[in-house]
């Protein structure tokens, strides 16, 4: 009786895994360009970005159809509603990676000591995205929960970067554009970390029925 429904759920799952992999790929390319000056693949960013957008639409369609036709309850309902929320975060991650790629173009390869924290941020954010997607794929609750703690590292790096850039400006060591571009990049990376946390929270919700944010009194 459920076989058709189970089949649809497994299709949904596979699509989410593909979308997650695209997110990992797109931030991988952007940060490789930023941190290692490796801009060979930068032109792929737009293509991957639109593929992510397309997948968001497709997965949303699958979810709405399942909600309408199957009236899912319990873990089925949680899995589908978690999927609906996760794709919004994944789509944002794709957009922000695209934004970063665009700004990298303005930097003209210029990087310096002030990028040390940004490197750490980017590496951490990538790990967060990878882990939250993997947690979904492997229904790994512990891995999902481990993502939350990395957010503090990202936030901390963002603050340090901001202070460094303020000093640079105060000491008149730079033109106006460069520190602003870097700050934007840092902010986008920080947001990517937040979206990875959201994804991890939806994975937790899907597996346990408890959403971290709704559980605070």
């Amino acid at each position, binding site marked *: *009786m*459920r076989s058709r*429904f189970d089949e649809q759920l497994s299709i949904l799952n596979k699509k989410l895994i593909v979308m997650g992999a695209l997110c990992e790929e797109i931030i991988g390319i952007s940060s490789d360009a930023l941190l290692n000056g490796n801009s060979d693949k930068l032109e792929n960013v737009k293509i991957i970005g639109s593929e992510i957008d397309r997948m968001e639409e497709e997965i949303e369609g699958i979810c709405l159809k399942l909600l309408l036709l199957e*009236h*899912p*309850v*319990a*873990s*089925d*309902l*949680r899995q589908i509603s978690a999927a609906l929320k996760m794709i919004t975060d994944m789509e944002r991650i794709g957009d922000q990676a695209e934004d970063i790629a665009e700004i990298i173009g303005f930097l003209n390869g210029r990087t310096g000591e002030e990028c040390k924290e940004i490197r750490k941020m980017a590496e951490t954010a990538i790990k967060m995205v990878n882990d939250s997607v993997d947690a979904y794929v492997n229904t790994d609750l512990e891995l999902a929960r481990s993502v939350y703690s990395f957010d503090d590292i990202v936030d901390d790096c963002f603050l340090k970067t901001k202070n460094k850039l303020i000093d640079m400006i105060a000491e008149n060591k730079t033109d106006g554009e460069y520190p602003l571009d870097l700050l934007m990049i840092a902010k986008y990376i920080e947001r990517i970390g937040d979206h990875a946390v959201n994804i991890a929270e939806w994975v937790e919700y899907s597996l*346990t*029925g*408890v959403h971290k944010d709704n559980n605070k009194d």
Partner: protein
Amino acid sequence: MKGIINAKNLNLWYGETQALKNINIEIPEKSITALIGPSGCGKSTFLKILNRMNDLIPIVKIKGDIYYNGKDIFEKSIDVNSLRRDIGMVFQKPNPFPMSIYDNIAYGPRIHGIKGKQRLDEIVENSLKDAAIWDEVKDRLKKNALGLSGGQQQRLCIARALAVKPKVILMDEPTSALDPISTSKIEELSLKLKDKYTIIIVTHNMQQAVRISDNTAFFLLGELIEFGKTEEIFSNPLDKRTENYITGRFG
């Protein structure tokens, strides 16, 4: 919310078969409680015991207690007729009496000693209004109730149950024989009635339980597996067996 019906360690046997196993449940008043579970799990048995419709069957044996408004319903001093006036029942198949619409409704009040045309007219009108069927039948109150459609007959039966001013209405799969429109009328009616009455409804329709009930009890093989807020049961059941049943993974 205060519990109006309270079952404590309730067991029931039909001869050798145990149909209810150590049921403990407190039903909140002025709300809708849905009873769900596969056929034969004891839902109807539980419903019927609440107004003592099955404890007179010779092979039935009962252990444990049921309290209605704090009073033990198995006590000798309890008047079964007045218990049944307080706790009314609506069955799966609409069962209007083969008499006029008016007499169907007036039947219960008459039995309980109410006389006087004006008084009875009033009860008939109010009951039919409360059951959301007044407009459809007010011009043919003297016609035979068997001429009504299935959905109308079921609302008539609800009106008949309301006519004796009950506190609790038990409904055993009241919409399973009805079309979707009649079903939604009964559902809307139930939601309206819960302001004044406590409703306990057996349903095989999961969506119906979700739509109308405040609390849901899941029975399996005579056991009460899980009882809680409907929203919780259907989004995050605690027991794997509940999960398997409501998601259709059962058996």
